[in-house]
């Protein structure tokens, strides 16, 4: 089926006029970000203070306009939203909080995976390595990513309903509490870290570079919101359809029972 058909037939499933507006704005933002990242900003080239050689990240810096926004949302915003929604669920015990937590964490897991991937691709030319064991944020993000995968695995197999929601909420809350401990322990584990030292602070932050980074963060927050919105609605539909199935089968049993009664009479 062609993409266009999918988009068209989806109307009425998880879209609403407002979400469509947000989706269009996000799409426009992504295109603008792309133009800024690739055509309007300059590559990161500096002159070495003594030798006068050209140093810097050159065009690899263009990966950061993608990596940094996702690195703020994937390992920070999304787990936070997920944990807050999980606490909300344990207090209110309504489907809304449960589905919200699931949506935020699923989208967060995708962003975390992409953060690790783009970071690795960026690290190869700039740090000269695909993977840096000594880097705190890298290791923390990896462990978090694995915890989020565990959460999603539990979601997939746990029996539906209250039981699943309760267990998932606890896993999400423990993951969020554990996050600073992991961060601290990895920091002590290898006290050297590449991240702050050699990237953003050293980067020649020009006005346009900074603007593009900020724009990237805003655009990706919009994208995150839009994705979570649709994931939420899908999760809601799935729960409702399960409920409908139960109602239907109760109805069926009931009509069978009436038939039987009439038969015996």
């Amino acid at each position, binding site marked *: 089926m062609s993409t266009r058909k999918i988009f068209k037939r989806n109307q009425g499933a998880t879209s*609403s006029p407002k979400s469509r507006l947000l989706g269009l704005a996000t799409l426009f933002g992504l295109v603008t970000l792309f133009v800024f990242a690739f055509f309007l900003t300059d590559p990161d080239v500096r002159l070495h203070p003594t030798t006068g050689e050209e140093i810097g990240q050159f*065009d690899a810096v263009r990966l950061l306009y993608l990596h940094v926004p996702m690195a703020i949302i994937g390992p920070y915003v999304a787990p936070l939203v997920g944990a807050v929604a999980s606490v909300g669920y344990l207090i209110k015990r309504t489907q809304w909080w449960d589905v919200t937590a699931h949506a935020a964490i699923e989208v967060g897991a995708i962003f975390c995976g992409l953060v690790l991937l783009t970071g690795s691709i960026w690290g190869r030319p700039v740090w000269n390595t695909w993977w840096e064991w000594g880097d705190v944020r890298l290791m923390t993000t990896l462990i978090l990513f694995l915890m989020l995968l565990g959460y999603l695995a539990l979601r997939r197999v746990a029996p539906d309903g209250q039981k699943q929601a309760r267990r998932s909420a606890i896993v999400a809350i423990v993951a969020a509490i554990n996050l600073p401990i992991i961060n601290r322990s990895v920091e002590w584990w290898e006290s050297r870290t590449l991240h702050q030292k050699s990237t953003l602070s050293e980067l020649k932050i020009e006005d346009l570079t900074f603007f593009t980074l900020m724009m990237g963060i805003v655009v990706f927050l919009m994208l995150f919101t839009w994705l979570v919105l*649709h994931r939420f609605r899908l999760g809601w539909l799935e729960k409702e359809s399960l409920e409908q199935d139960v109602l239907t089968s109760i109805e069926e049993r009931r009509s069978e029972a009436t038939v039987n009664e009439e038969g015996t009479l």
Partner: protein
Amino acid sequence: MTHLGYLIAGWGISLVVIFAYVISLFRRARSVAPRVPLDRQRWMTSSE
């Protein structure tokens, strides 16, 4: 442009993954939506 391969890989994979995720969301929603009565799809009743 230097590092073109890295740039294409990084941006390309990210955008493709997100796009594929969006498509999968839409497909799943489309298959499950007919089984749910419209008055239980709140975003439909409230806005249209």
